[in-house]
């Protein structure tokens, strides 16, 4: 009656493809888009270093419809990565205590997201301004 024979159940092999883990999987995959963006930027820098002709080729490729479509998809994925990254942010830091009370995690996410948007907009303005002046 009291025989002990613990049964080990295996976790589903494709756990990452099912709810509630699918959101996590998409978040992690969207990080690949950030790497691809970096790779495109790096390719541009290498073309710039190799000379005006190579750089003109790089610009021509960027103007193609295919490149435009890829960039739309990458932009969407990177924006999703930004939002979900800041949702994780409050999990990675100690509780923020102000005036003896904890600042809600949602508020931390909202403020960080706002700062990121303002910084990105400022950077865009600077780049456009420099482009217009040169």
């Amino acid at each position: 009656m009291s025989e002990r024979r613990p049964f080990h159940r295996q976790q589903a092999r494709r756990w990452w493809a099912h709810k509630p883990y699918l959101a996590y999987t998409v978040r992690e995959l969207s990080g690949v888009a950030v790497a691809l963006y970096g790779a495109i930027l790096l390719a541009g820098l290498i073309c710039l270093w190799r000379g005006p002709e190579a750089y003109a080729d790089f610009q021509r490729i960027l103007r193609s419809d295919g490149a435009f479509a890829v960039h739309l998809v990458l932009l969407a994925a990177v924006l999703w990565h930004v939002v979900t990254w800041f949702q994780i942010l409050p999990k990675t830091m100690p509780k923020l205590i102000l005036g003896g009370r904890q600042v809600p995690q949602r508020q931390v996410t909202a403020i960080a997201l706002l700062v990121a948007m303002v910084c990105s907009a400022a950077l865009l303005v600077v780049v456009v301004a420099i482009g217009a002046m040169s």
Partner: protein
Amino acid sequence: MSDTTVSSNVPAKTVQLRVLRYRPASDREPAFVNYRVAYSDDMSVLQALQSIKDTQDGSLSFRWSCRMAVCGSCGMMINGEPKLACNTFVRDLAPNTVIIEPLQNFPIERDLVVTVGDFVKKIESIYPYIIPKAPKPIEDGAYLQTPAQMASYESFSDCINCMLCYAACPQFGVNPDFIGPGAMAMLQRYNGDSRDGGRQFRLDQIHGEDGVWSCTAVGICSEVCPKQVDPANAVNQNKTNSALDFFLHYLQPRSQP
């Protein structure tokens, strides 16, 4: 009062419970068994299981104690989600069949009862008690703490060791030696306490893959927690602490405990 009389004459609503059963002495592997139970609007899944045990099959095994979400004994998978059976209500799940399984990621001892030995060892390994910074005689009075100092660890002390977070953690499913969310919440409860001086002992327990570094911030542990302990926060803020401690130990050789 007349309402009560009327409703008691109405035939009781029933719901089907599909329970994963495993009797180690006779079963090769777990198998589902269906039961039909009459339920009222205030009936929890735990009460439904108790009604099966009382009236249909006395051999059905499950853990429970307080039946009010304080003891953490009745954790199980209900329709695939880790839940406390005592604060999950049949009315929210009926008329569909309710699928009940033992907690995911743990070995099954019998029916809905899982092995908790490893989890208890993990809790023990992180020194789950206050280690004073220096000896303090009683004559010197009580330790004082401001509300802000208390707020920095208080929610982590709400953990009831129900292990739902472990059942929700796919990384614990992959690596059973991963210290896991619950034990890390307990660790942070003490490391975050201004009266405690045992931080270094605990940090020494959480380096490496079996420490915090198996975590990939999936975050479902915090979502299933019935006490809003936020174990994902406990694990992830200690990745920073573990990394800092790794680099600092090169700079300042530390004395042996």
